[in-house]
């Protein structure tokens, strides 16, 4: 079931506009390709003379690399090239922003192929290219690597200790205060302050402080990382790859291989999921070097265990959150101490985590301390609202406990304190018009909230979530065809239907149908720079570029009409795609047919770089039943409400909400990296790293709230990421009501829940 609601307190300027295309549900343009097996994903490519690469990976969580001997592998028939970190140029210590996080190229290069040390089990150490994938895997086993194993550190608190094994001898904590004299595993300490927390906590009638832990989890896209590289004899490099951002792959390749961006073409194939995990490069530089060495196209596709062990999971964390409130339910102060693991290299997602921890509430006084900590796990990456899910788990559970102690309804308590226009976040920014209050009200009015939940072992929970959503750079070109259709050329890789949501904005602006637009995602030589498909930005920012391109087309069409009708462009009016002037009137399509015969081609361009955030809020409501005999938690009913600003294609907005909610449910109930005492992941398969199946779930009801974003012509906010944020705390709060136990560790898997219930029953 899905519902769309406009907020009650819509102001005059926010009257819902009447649209012809926006808000409808056309079939996606790439739909037929994707239901017939014709869509070309990277692994579907088979280039002439292509060979296959495979990695050699560290069997140790932490080890010095003493020597690498590739000679035996190189003698095998069918083996064409090998590659180690010695084949990559010496990296430079340079930091770049990739759209959803920064990267230091020295670290990136060392992650692609280990240099002096292997820093986690599965860390790539060498690679080989051979005439078949089987042969490549076999040859990889004949590359001899001598290791000197070192002690590993696997949890964030352990890694912060003074006597913890150091991953990087030169890592000095980056902090605003005095630089420490000695290296450590703490790569940075960030702090945000607002007001005076001592004053704030003194004014509180109730203060609650709790500690939380979350396990490392993976984005879990179904398509493994895969690339084909062709390094040509003229020095040009072409890479077909599964990526969220072809231009950021080009940027990374340029820096890692020290060659100009103009020598590199990245062809984004269809991509089988990303969720933040397909932004950093892994196999691309290695495939490129192998191709250079053997003169043939090289394909590398990771096995699933390699994806789990060696690509970006999102961090495990330890968090302490303290909140105070008055008797009448006003929050007075908040304090958070957050330590996130970054994996083997600095630069995890603690930044956004620290910014989001109190982002749903109007807190007069707050302090947030955040620590980025390296340890012997794969380098962490963004995962859908990176960092926000962790901190929402902590804050929303404490909020629920406060409401309970104060005997205030949990939604009323949140409404009392909800962030709204003018609220200043702890890290500084002041919100423009946002929709948290409207989402809470929509949940309050929902049939779900109004329906009583009865029965033993059942409970209901609610939680809020926030994600910034970003703008960043996008480019499109739009060409008017002789039949009045428009070809839309864009650089945003399409992971979930954005060809259509972008095309719909062009169509709405021009007054044509969504089907009259033919969108194409093209390579990096064929469109202007476009940032990643990430940050919930694509429908917002690339949509904005399409809107600009449409206005550009409209200006040119007016000029053509003036020429045809022999009048001044000033005498021509355009409304709903109808051009009128000099007593005549033509639709866009009719005019395009005539213009094709008389004038120059009509080519629209759109290039944008919107700054700041578009601020998405979500509220989830969940009913669970806990099996006291097994600890298994069953989701009985789920309602996810979100402010989309404006839903361009409501089906795909619902899809983002449902998909994000279910990823959050998986994170809450099952997903985690199991490490043994050697630092080896013991569940690197989809059998043992258990993401939700459809048998684990009910329907996910959605409520789309539309509080328009003032910075977009159609009010779009972006929708992709925030849906994953509220599920873990909403479910924890529901399990508490079902069992009487407050869970403060993720995942709340059957053994954890069963043990806690047992402990409660036996008074332990």
């Amino acid at each position, binding site marked *: 079931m899905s519902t769309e609601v406009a907020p009650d307190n819509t102001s005059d300027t926010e009257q819902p506009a009447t649209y012809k295309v926006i808000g409808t549900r056309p079939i*996606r343009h790439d739909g037929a390709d994707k239901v017939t*097996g014709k869509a070309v994903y990277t692994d579907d490519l088979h280039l002439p003379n292509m060979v296959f690469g495979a990695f050699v990976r560290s069997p140790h969580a932490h080890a010095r690399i003493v020597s690498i001997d590739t000679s035996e592998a190189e003698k095998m028939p069918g083996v064409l090239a090998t590659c180690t970190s010695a084949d990559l140029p010496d990296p430079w210590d340079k930091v770049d922003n990739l759209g959803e996080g920064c990267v230091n190229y020295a670290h990136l290069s060392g992650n692609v192929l280990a240099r002096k040390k292997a820093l986690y089990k599965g860390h790539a150490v060498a690679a080989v290219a051979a005439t078949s994938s089987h042969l490549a895997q076999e040859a990889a086993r004949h590359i001899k690597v001598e290791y000197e194993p070192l002690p590993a550190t696997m949890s964030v608190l352990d890694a912060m200790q003074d006597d913890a094994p150091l991953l990087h001898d030169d890592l000095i904590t980056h902090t605003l205060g005095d630089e420490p004299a000695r290296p450590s595993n703490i790569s940075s300490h960030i702090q945000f302050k607002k007001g005076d927390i001592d004053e704030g906590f003194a004014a509180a009638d109730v203060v609650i402080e709790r500690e939380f832990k979350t396990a490392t989890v993976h984005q879990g896209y179904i398509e493994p990382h895969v690339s084909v590289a062709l390094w040509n004899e003229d020095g040009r490099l072409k890479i077909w790859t599964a990526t969220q951002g072809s231009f950021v792959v080009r940027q990374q390749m340029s820096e890692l291989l020290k060659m100009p961006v103009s020598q590199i073409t990245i062809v984004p194939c269809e*991509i089988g999921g990303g969720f933040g995990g397909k932004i950093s490069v892994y196999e691309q530089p290695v495939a490129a070097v192998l191709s250079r060495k053997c003169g043939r196209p090289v394909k590398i596709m990771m096995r699933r265990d390699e994806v789990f062990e060696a690509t970006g999971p999102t961090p495990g964390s330890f968090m302490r959150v303290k909140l105070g409130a008055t008797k009448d339910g006003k929050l007075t102060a908040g304090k958070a101490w957050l330590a996130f693991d970054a994996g083997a290299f600095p630069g995890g997602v603690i930044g956004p985590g620290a910014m989001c921890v109190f982002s749903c509430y109007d807190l007069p006084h707050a302090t947030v301390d955040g620590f980025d900590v390296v340890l012997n796990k794969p380098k962490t990456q963004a995962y859908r609202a990176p960092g926000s899910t962790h901190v929402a788990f902590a804050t929303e559970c404490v909020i629920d406990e406060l409401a309970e102690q104060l005997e205030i309804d949990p939604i009323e308590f949140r409404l009392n304190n909800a962030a709204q226009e003018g609220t200043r976040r702890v890290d500084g920014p002041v919100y423009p018009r946002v929709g948290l209050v409207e989402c809470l009200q929509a949940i309050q009015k929902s049939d779900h909230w109004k329906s009583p939940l009865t029965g033993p072992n059942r409970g209901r929970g609610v939680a809020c979530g926030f994600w910034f959503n970003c703008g960043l750079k996008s480019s499109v070109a739009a060409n008017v065809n002789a039949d009045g259709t428009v070809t839309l050329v864009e650089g945003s890789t399409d992971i979930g239907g954005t060809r259509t949501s972008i095309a719909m904005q062009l169509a709405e602006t021009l007054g044509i149908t969504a089907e009259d637009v033919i969108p194409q995602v093209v390579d990096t030589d064929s469109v202007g720079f476009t940032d990643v498909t990430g940050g919930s930005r694509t429908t917002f920012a690339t949509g904005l570029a399409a809107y600009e391109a449409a206005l550009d087309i409209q200006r040119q069409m007016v000029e053509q009409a003036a020429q045809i009708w022999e009048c001044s462009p000033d005498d021509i009016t355009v409304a709903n795609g109808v051009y009128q002037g000099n007593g005549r009137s033509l639709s866009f399509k009719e005019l395009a047919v005539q213009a094709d015969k008389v004038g120059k081609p009509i080519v629209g361009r759109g290039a944008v770089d919107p700054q700041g955030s578009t601020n998405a809020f979500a509220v989830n409501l969940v009913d669970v039943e806990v099996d006291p005999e097994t600890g298994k938690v069953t989701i009985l009913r789920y309602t996810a409400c979100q402010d989309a600003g404006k839903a361009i294609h409501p089906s795909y907005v619902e899809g983002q909400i449902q998909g994000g909610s279910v990823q959050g449910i998986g994170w809450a109930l099952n997903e985690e990296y199991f490490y043994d005492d050697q630092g080896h992941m013991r569940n690197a398969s*989809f059998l043992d790293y258990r993401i939700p199946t*459809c048998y684990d779930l009910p329907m996910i009801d959605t409520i789309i709230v539309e509080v328009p974003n003032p910075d977009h012509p159609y009010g779009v906010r972006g929708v992709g990421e925030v849906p994953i944020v509220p599920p873990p705390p909403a479910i924890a709060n529901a399990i508490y009501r079902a069992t009487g136990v407050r869970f403060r560790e993720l995942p709340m898997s059957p053994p954890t829940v069963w043990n806690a219930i047992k402990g409660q029953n036996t008074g332990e």
Partner: protein
Amino acid sequence: MKTHVTTTINGGSVEFLCQPRQSLLEVLRDELSLTGCKEGCNNGNCGACTVMLDGLPVNSCLVLAVEAEGAVIETVEGIAEQGHLHPLQQCFLEGAALQCGICTPGFLVAAKALLEKNPQPSEQEIRFGLAGNLCRCTGYDKIVRAVQAAAQTPEAQSPGLSKRPGLLSRTTQTEAKSL
């Protein structure tokens, strides 16, 4: 050394040579260019490689290509007929039941097998029937609804794979050969 295998794929007779270690998935994709079935895990956990083998949905990554001798195989490429999408494909598109699309071929094959066995499944039967296929994008809601919608179309109940040789006849063939 390679083995010669003769099969029927999407209604046509197909012969191929394969190594004993090659999976059916590998041969379909790399030797026969039927890249609609996808490799997500290569160990039978994600269902992206689902194809019909003698009337039953199987993970083609867990079937050796040599086992396809004499078998009748249907892949996602064979679901649309004569330029027309199958009702399931149409309902997946109308219901926005795909996002990235990598799992879609496997879901379509599995859902078609389900509807042929049980033309009017309940929601729980659909969820149970598709539990071997992982989707990380949609949360499954729209996939389940698309299958429900397809079950309501008259075409969904038209003769399809159910009229082709089933498991029983396959077993019979194998036994006959071993005799």
